[in-house]
């Protein structure tokens, strides 16, 4: 399988403070890969750096061999990478429908609204309500559904289970499995180890802005003890 996203020696800064100190990892087409690590390890920053949302970054981010390090966020998005932020980023001044349709199409083959609503039936009756009037779980579904519409094939998901009830977490897990089956490539940031274990092909453990270990999905259970110490559990 080809390497879809290859990140090499990625360094990134927030203002003056350096947060990523040389990240190396890759995501192959069709894979689900997680970034695990405790708060402040730089997981979210890694996703933002890939999207070009930071003041300063260096190193290399290659998408199917094309370098993205100098590109503007809107150009990176247009190359087929979609970002679902941790805080979900539902716009309060937009209705659910407007939120759903906001990201422009970047490639052919995105899901239709009907398909998205089949995936997340809860949203169907809420299309005309204000975006932020949804429950936390519904907002997360909207945030996910929104980027499926664009035709992007690589999804960067930042803690999609944060603050959600177990039932909703399972539903989101099923959705990610479905998306994988549909051929999406997914880079997932998680704190919820159990959630990540069931989904991912590979895991990268992060500490202080670096990848410290790569764990294949199959070896996950065996490494759970070591993992918990990494995560400070």
């Amino acid at each position, binding site marked *: 399988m080809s390497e879809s996203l290859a990140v090499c020696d990625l360094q990134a800064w927030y203002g003056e403070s350096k947060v990523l100190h040389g990240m190396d990892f890759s995501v192959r087409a069709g894979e689900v890969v997680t970034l695990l690590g405790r708060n402040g390890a730089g997981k979210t920053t890694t996703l933002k750096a890939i999207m070009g949302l930071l003041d300063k970054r260096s190193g290399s981010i290659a998408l199917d061999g094309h370098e993205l390090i100098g590109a503007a966020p809107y150009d990176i998005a247009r190359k087929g990478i979609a970002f679902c932020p*941790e805080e979900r980023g539902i716009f309060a001044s937009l209705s659910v429908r407007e939120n759903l349709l906001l990201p422009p199409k970047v490639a052919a083959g995105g899901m239709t609204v009907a398909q998205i609503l089949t995936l997340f039936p809860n949203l169907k009756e809420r299309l005309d309500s204000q975006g932020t009037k949804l429950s936390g779980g519904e907002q997360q579904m909207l945030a996910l559904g929104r980027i499926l519409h664009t035709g992007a094939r690589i999804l960067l998901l930042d803690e999609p289970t*944060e603050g959600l009830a*177990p039932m909703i977490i399972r539903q989101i897990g099923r959705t990610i499995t479905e998306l994988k089956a549909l051929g999406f490539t997914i880079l997932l940031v998680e704190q919820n180890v*159990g*959630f990540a274990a069931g989904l991912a092909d590979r895991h990268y453990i992060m500490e202080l802005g670096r990848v410290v270990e790569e764990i294949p999905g199959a070896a996950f259970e065996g490494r759970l003890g070591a993992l918990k110490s990494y995560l400070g559990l």
Partner: protein
Amino acid sequence: MTDGAVYALETRDLSREFGGFFAVNGVNFRLARNSMHAVIGPNGAGKTTLFNLLTKFLPPSAGMILHDGQDVTRLSMPAMAKRSVVRSFQISAVFAGLTVRENIELALLREHGLAWNLLGRIAHHRRVLERADALLERFGLTDYAGTMAGSLSYGRKRVLELATTLALEPSVLLLDEPMAGLGHEDIGRVTQLIREAGKGRTVLLVEHNMNVVAELADTITVMVRGEVLAQGSYAEVSSRADVMAAYTGQAHE
């Protein structure tokens, strides 16, 4: 409320709503005097919101907050500080345009009746200078006394913020993720500082780093989805299956 004990801080059915979403939902929380108490929970559990409610950074939507048994729900942040309840911030809050020494002196002004001194000079008040010297020494900041706080390293800002906070000699110290963004070396040092600071006063901290929590806290409250899931010692809390499940998300119903 059956034991009749008076707590350093106590909440009764405290809630905070953000556009229909309850970040803190009917929380009854008690902070015993002279305890070292940690609030933990996964991201989005409402820890920071609870903390911001206790420190008057946010007004509650419903419920009550008591300090030493008195209703302080409507008091302002400065009023709480005057009651000797002082907080720190997650993103280090120092006065960037003042030197390290000036930051610390600032915290001493009120106590020495100088905050409203319009024409005098701090340099003329030996007691303030001596106390500032002592604090600089105690926190290992003497060499940086003349440095602009804004140009300190992240870890040092943390230490300075702690020093400034402790300069007020608060009876209740509230620390918002004191280890956030710190490297290994700094974590050890700050842990030590917090332990020392905790002697003879009440400390509440919100913290993600479990090693730190295990090492410091005598009582732990676990929050999940805006509610209190469990409370007890580290051993008690960490042995509970529902707590582990909340953290790891592993199926447990």
